[in-house]
């Protein structure tokens, strides 16, 4: 914590902040230093003790370094398979904004936002983010505008970067009848950093958000991402996680369905090996009548890896006719793996349809035998079964080109 305090003081000195902002940051810094990183005593972190993990994987963390080098954009990080708009972050610093495919004045990206927003309940990592993120960005999609090409946000680090804490905060606002396709792509070259990202989404009437988070490429960073989504009537949010590359990752989603007929979809894949430890935590709050949510999370775990899924459906007493569904499945490929789940229902209305299911176990030997008796090798049979298991989740993706892209990235042939 000493490190944090000195780094925080340095940050305040080097940035020109308004009095209001300083007060906000001071408050959050105080909250963070009194709680520290969450540990397993916190109910939300029961399955993933990030305090221990940071200690073990990183040790001492730098919270603020003056003038983090940005450097050039490495060409090899860019995706060429798909036409897209770009936002490129290197070492947490914005280096490129590119909305060439969109109409002028319809999509705005602002970086001089007042960095103050409502406080979410006890979350010391959000406190850390609020205290240290030096800018708050805002992406605005104007009324009646449907984005033409997906926006890819590149989250990259340079290979020199190590033991650094990076905080990033973006607010997204989708005005009435607008839509946004957003891909978060993780491409890290740095080692052993702690990356803390906080997104706020505000979805107005009839707006559609599609958010795909791709953590596919091997890296040994620790990652925490919080999505806070507020939905008005008739809005739709779709969130997809490919959770694979980082050493540790926890994705949290907190979604308020505030308008009638709004719906939220959360789908996720964990494909883990080599002692990796990933978690998805989703809380969907049904606050008014006629809302819908759907969650599907599947894990394939090998070689000392672990995954955890905490999903909660909350139904307010006003939220009659809610439809909530939640399913988590896991294949434990070998004996060293572990799957934890806590699928929760908290329901105060009677005319609802809510269910959840969870199943975990080994690969089905009978199915392997069946395939091998038809000429596949053991390896092929296993692969076929695992891919078939995971592709069900990828097929939930509603955007065809992006579905294809993700299958490609994951290494699945198109016939799946």
């Amino acid at each position, binding site marked *: 914590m000493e490190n944090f305090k000195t780094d925080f003081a340095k940050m305040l000195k080097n940035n020109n902040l308004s009095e209001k902002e300083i007060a906000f940051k001071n408050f959050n810094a105080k909250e963070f230093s009194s709680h520290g990183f969450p540990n397993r005593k916190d109910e939300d972190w029961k399955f993933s003790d990030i305090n221990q993990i940071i200690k073990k994987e990183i040790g001492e963390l730098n919270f603020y370094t003056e003038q983090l080098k940005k450097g050039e954009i490495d060409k090899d990080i860019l995706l060429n398979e798909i036409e897209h708009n770009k936002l490129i972050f290197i070492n947490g610093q914005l280096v490129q904004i590119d909305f060439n495919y969109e109409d002028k004045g319809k999509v705005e990206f602002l970086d001089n936002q007042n960095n103050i927003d409502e406080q979410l309940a006890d979350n010391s990592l959000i406190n850390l983010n609020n205290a240290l993120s030096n800018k708050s960005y805002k992406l605005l999609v104007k009324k009646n505008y449907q984005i033409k090409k997906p926006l890819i946000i590149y989250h990259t680090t340079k290979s020199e970067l190590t033991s650094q804490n990076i905080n990033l905060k973006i607010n997204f606002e989708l005005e009435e009848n607008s839509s946004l396709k957003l891909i978060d792509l993780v491409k890290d070259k740095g080692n052993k950093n702690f990356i803390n990202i906080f997104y706020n989404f505000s979805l107005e009437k009839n707006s559609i958000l599609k958010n795909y988070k791709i953590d596919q490429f091997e890296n040994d960073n620790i990652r925490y991402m919080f999505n806070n989504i507020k939905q008005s009537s008739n809005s739709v949010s779709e969130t997809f996680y490919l959770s694979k590359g980082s050493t540790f990752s926890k994705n949290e989603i907190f979604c308020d369905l505030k308008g009638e007929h709004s719906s939220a979809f959360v789908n996720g894949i964990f494909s883990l090996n080599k002692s990796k430890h990933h978690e998805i935590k989703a809380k969907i709050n049904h606050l008014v009548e006629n809302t819908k949510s759907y969650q599907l999370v599947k894990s394939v775990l090998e070689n000392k890896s672990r995954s955890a899924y905490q999903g909660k459906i909350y139904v307010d007493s006003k939220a009659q006719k809610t439809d909530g569904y939640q399913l988590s499945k896991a294949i*434990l490929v070998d004996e060293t793996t572990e*799957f*934890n*789940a*806590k699928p929760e*229902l908290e*329901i105060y209305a*009677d005319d*609802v349809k809510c269910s959840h299911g*969870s199943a975990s176990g080994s690969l089905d030997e009978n199915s392997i035998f069946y395939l091998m008796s038809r000429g596949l090798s053991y390896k092929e049979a296993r692969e076929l079964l695992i891919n078939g298991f995971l592709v069900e989740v990828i097929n939930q993706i509603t955007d065809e080109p992006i579905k294809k892209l993700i299958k490609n990235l994951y290494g699945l042939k198109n016939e799946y």
Partner: protein
Amino acid sequence: MREKELEKLKDYKYGFSTDIENFKAPKGLNEDVIKFISNIKKEPKWLLDWRLKAYNRVKVLKEPNWQKPKYPKIDYQDLYYYSAPKSFKEKPKSLDELDPKLIETYNKLGIPLNEQKRLNGIAVDAVFDSVSVATTFKDTLTEKGIIFCSISEAIQKHPDLVKKYLGSVIPITDHYFATLNSAVFTDGSFVYIPPGVRCPMELSTYFRINASDTGQFERTLIIADKGSYVSYLEGCTAPMRDENQLHAANVELIALDDAEIKYSTVQNWYPGDKDGKGGIYNFVTKRGLCKGKNSKISWTQVETGSAITWKYPSCILQGDNSVGEFYSIAITNNHQKADTGTKMIHLGKNTKSKIISKGISAGFSDMTYRGLVDISPKSSNSSNYTQCDSLLMGNKCGAHTIPYIKNKNSNSNIAHEATTSKISDEQLHYCQQRGLNSEEAVSLIVNGFCKEVLQQLPMEFAVEAQKLVGISLEGSVG
């Protein structure tokens, strides 16, 4: 006629209190009170030391606070930890010497202590406030070598067995209420089934809280030796009182090789009145250890009473091939709150567990299923199946499901399902069309919803439980 009967049943029919002179320990929780309890029960020194050790831990422990139902702070110094009918200072030697008022009380409850009057063979151990008042059918059981008596008697007559097993499943280092119980437990039942014996009748304990300001802390210990079988029933009631009363019992089950224990509870403590005033706090720790190979423990519970129910009958599946089962119906109405479920801890190989939980909430009540299934790395080829269904009546109540699932073994399977719904109008309409009134219709549908669990209960209990399910939901529809 039927109307009249229903009218009578609408109120808590066990709400009377018996006017009997009581002999109590001084109010409060301290070393002297524990010594007093130990002394009056003529306990050996090791047990007193054990109690004091537990008490020293209670002093530093904090009450757990993670549960959903919150309750006002309990003043542990304002409770009586021992209360017995005065006529019990010297324990009566036979039923003839028993205070007639007590016999009357149990007759009112429908538990005749007089053996001749009983048609069906169920041996009963009746516990009144802090002491066991009578145990029936002793001779028949003794013939088979079965020990069924109050735990105080067992401490005197079978100290070796008690010493060996007491605290082996719920140690004194456990959570607050379990440890408090270890320090001040007053009475309860003790069962030992010798190797290879199949207990010829159902064993049953009936608990009754009578005195006011009394906490009931009973301790039940059941040991099924190799290859034996026992089915055990437990029922409970309390008078209607305005203040809340604490009930913190500990139940330990131990099943050795090839043994089977079936434990059924119909819990009908006073739930408080319509506005949530009074009622019992039922904070119970129940845990079974499948110690031997091929052993089996099965919990069945029907929870309709208590202002707050907070219990998780659990199975530790230590022996290879052991089986744990949990069947539960929990019903909350008015301002009742329940946070109940189970824990299945798989340690041995090829262990299996099954959880069926049905929760029904009505009125302003709140019901939570909270459960843990944990399969350890060494417990290969194990499996669990969990199903928890909730039924809601009205939008002032809540139903919650919080399962924790931990799978650390790749050869083991866990499957979990949960649904929440309401009684559909079509179902109600169908029944009413055929001449049932709305309350009968609801009772019928709810009984159907609970059928899987009711089937697990022994005959005599199943009938009582079915009636209870209907009565508990009176006035919740319409």
